[in-house]
């Protein structure tokens, strides 16, 4: 019981503070809202505090894990869903879950203020609504780069040059949403045949594939590898922490996915879930999204984020989520057949 006690201490303090501001303790019991999310742990506290300040009768309970694990958790529970709302999870994953009739449509108040390309427009009301974009980028360790005399790459094509052999790490698309987003974007940019040829060439330079999408950049930050294919937020964050990194958005265009939310069908806490949905498209929420991410769903909000690659929004490809979700398994199988086999002899 100690654990629950400890965690409730922190939450309790926030609650007490809120109650004090309102001047009276709420008489009725709070609704516990079970929110499944892939948003990184250090950000969750601030979202919870901000939301509960506006909605004192709701108590958010996070279920946090990486995109892959959260998605498989949700799938494992598909006969008997536990979550009330899925929040801050890749749109590609939500589309996959929508196939199992997992969600119920809802148009949050203020939806019309969002950019149309960032939410589900095929269904009305939309099944899922995007919050902010997480965008592929390349993390380049300048110290290691100098040590091995590596030029700073500017394009995806650059990464296939022989000079980078053994100096590049990328996430395995079979286990990482970021990895899939890279592969899917290369196919969408250059067409399938060229993209596979590109990946064949890139594979020769790859030191290894990681299970998670943020690890390549964290490895690059520590100099464990010179170049990590990862995403911009991670790169900017590591750089802010003092890592000798250059965060690059290759010029051909970068893949991206949306942190999005969707309300689970037949949730017992529909009101609270809708309250979170409404809050999530509000200007307050969008401004908090912008603290760490440069591209958010509401136009005109985003201010530049420190150490984010400049002009990254213009490099975002035209991403066809439907196509990506529909072709995901086929692409993953093909990828696995080509690159995930027996390790090559040295």
């Amino acid at each position: 019981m100690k654990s629950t006690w400890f965690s409730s201490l922190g939450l309790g303090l926030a609650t007490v503070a809120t109650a004090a501001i309102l001047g009276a303790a709420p008489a009725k019991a709070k609704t516990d809202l079970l929110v499944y999310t892939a948003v990184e742990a250090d950000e969750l506290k601030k979202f919870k505090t901000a939301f509960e300040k506006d909605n004192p009768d709701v108590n958010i309970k996070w279920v946090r894990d990486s995109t892959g694990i959260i998605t498989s958790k949700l799938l494992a529970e598909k006969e008997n869903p536990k979550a009330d709302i899925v929040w801050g999870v890749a749109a590609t994953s939500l589309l996959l879950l929508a196939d199992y009739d997992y969600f119920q449509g809802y148009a949050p108040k203020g939806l019309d203020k969002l950019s149309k390309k960032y939410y589900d427009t095929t269904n009305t009301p939309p099944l899922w609504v995007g919050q902010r974009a997480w965008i592929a980028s390349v993390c380049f360790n300048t110290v290691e780069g100098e040590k091995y005399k590596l030029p700073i790459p500017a394009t995806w094509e650059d990464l296939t040059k022989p000079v980078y052999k053994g100096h590049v790490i990328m996430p395995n698309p079979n286990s990482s949403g970021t990895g899939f987003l890279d592969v899917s974007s290369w196919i969408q940019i250059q067409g399938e045949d060229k993209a596979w040829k590109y990946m064949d060439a890139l594979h020769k330079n790859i030191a290894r594939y990681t299970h998670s999408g943020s690890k390549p950049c964290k490895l690059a930050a520590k100099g464990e590898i010179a170049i990590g294919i990862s995403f911009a937020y991670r790169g900017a964050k590591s750089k802010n922490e003092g890592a000798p990194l250059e965060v690059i958005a290759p010029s051909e265009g970068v893949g991206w996915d949306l942190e999005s939310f969707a309300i689970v069908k037949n949730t017992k806490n529909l009101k609270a879930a809708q309250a979170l949905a409404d809050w999530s498209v509000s200007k307050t929420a969008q401004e908090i999204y912008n603290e760490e991410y440069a591209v958010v769903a509401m136009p005109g909000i985003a201010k530049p984020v420190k150490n984010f690659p400049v002009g990254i929004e213009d490099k975002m490809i035209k991403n066809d989520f439907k196509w990506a979700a529909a072709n995901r398994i086929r692409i993953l199988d093909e990828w696995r057949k080509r690159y995930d086999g027996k390790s090559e002899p040295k």
Partner: protein
Amino acid sequence: MRDAAVAQAPRITPKVSSEDWIMRAVLVGIALYLTVSILLPLYAILSKSFKNADGLFVGLANYVNFFSTPALFWSIENSLTVTLICCVIVVTLAFIYAYALTRTCIPFKSLFKGVALLPILMPSLLPAIALVYLFGNQGIIKDWLFGYEIYGPIGIVMGECFYVFPHVLTIMLIAMANSDARLYEASDALGASKIKTFFTVTLPSVRYGLVSAFFVCFTLVITDFGVPKVVGGKYNVLATDIYKQVVGRQDFEMGAVVSMVLLLPALFAFAADRIVQRRQVALLSARAVPYQPKKNRVVDTAMLAFCCLIGLILVSILGMACFASFAKFWPYDLSLSLKHYNFDLMDGGSWNAYWNSIELAAWTAVIGTAMVFTGAYLVEKSKGFHSGRAAMQLLCMIPMAVPGLVLGLAYVFFFNAPNNPLGFLYHTMPILVICTVTHFYTVAHLTAATALKQLDGEFESVSQSLKVPFYKTFFRITVPVCMPAILDISMYLFVNAMTTVSAVVFLYSPDTALASVAILNMDDAGDVAPAAAMGMMIVGTAAAVRLVHAGLTRGILARTQAWRKR
């Protein structure tokens, strides 16, 4: 003798007393528990491997798919390769180490033994993380690999060797302890050389121990998931494949297939080991004289050097992990700081996870010990009901053969099925306790059974003729006499509950996140230093509990076991 006498007497059907019925009811209760916690989940995962994503029966289609995908079936070869290499290395090293500890006159034997048992206190993820700091691209002794990469088979073999060494050593020590000095005297008297004695006396006397060590090593390595997860690189093995199928691709059916493929070699090794162990029993004779090593300067010096080397390697791997957890920003800023211990800001980890682990370990130790010991008592000491006791005996053996990952995944399929009345357990602390108790049931049961076998059946007969209820005998005689074994079991369960990853990785929920899983998740997210820090917390806790256990054992031995000495 007593049994023989009974057999010759005219056959009388013993009356089944109400006490016997109580004992049988409890025995059946524990057997039911094991059925629900291991047999049914195994059935659930087996049937899942024959179904498609929509739950329709597809026969062997998933298996055909597995064996026609090179990326998948190559992992079998990879797994077997690294496992066999590990077994050869570890069994050889542990044999020499055990030889040094039992058959030579080197100093500091208890210190060397303590150092060798260190790896038991940590999850296998931790040595793997330490290897990255030692041999990774920024590793301090990277050059020692002559340009080879730690990520891949080399890293897996090194990490696994470290991880299984204490387990194999324990078996070797027991095997070596049971040797008969008279054979050495005879060999000496017949003028055999030292080397000849080694090959004709020493080796044959420990051959069963060697075989057993080999199989235990094989099972542990092939089913371990922590080491290949961290340093596996491009080298796929079965254990990481299950995780990748389920977590990465959400392909539960293929995960079930790979689980079944992994279950086979583990089952085989386990069965082979049981058969070999059965033959060992006849080897020991009551007249054996314990062997007393004689001084031999050359052998002793060489063995001391060997033990120092192995001890140094073990300590330095732990030391590296410890340093890594304190270094501020490896490798660019090596000043010491506690910032990596601030788990609440890390992905996948928090201090809650640490407290949860303690809670899990405590429950597992308490409930597990009570259940295992009671179960073993009823199997060993209750009367009649042979079929039930034999069935229970068999049930107790199954958990050992089931890899943790397979067990965990089986629990997901079984307990989260919508029509399962036990579904309310899913995502709770109790399911983690059930899973962990079951996962480590076999070894605990064997320990209890061994201790109980040493206890004469007369105790029960005498108390029965004095009309003392069996539970009184149990609590006033059996439990106190077996106290050392009971403490060993609770210690074993506690430490394993702290360090296990494989079975619980599919089962934890946000409220029941665990320290060992936090290591995995933090390493996965790239927060390697905090992962090492959490690992150090586990090592520290397990070591502290071990010390308490040692103190308790000493005190209790003095109080309750005085009768053993004359």
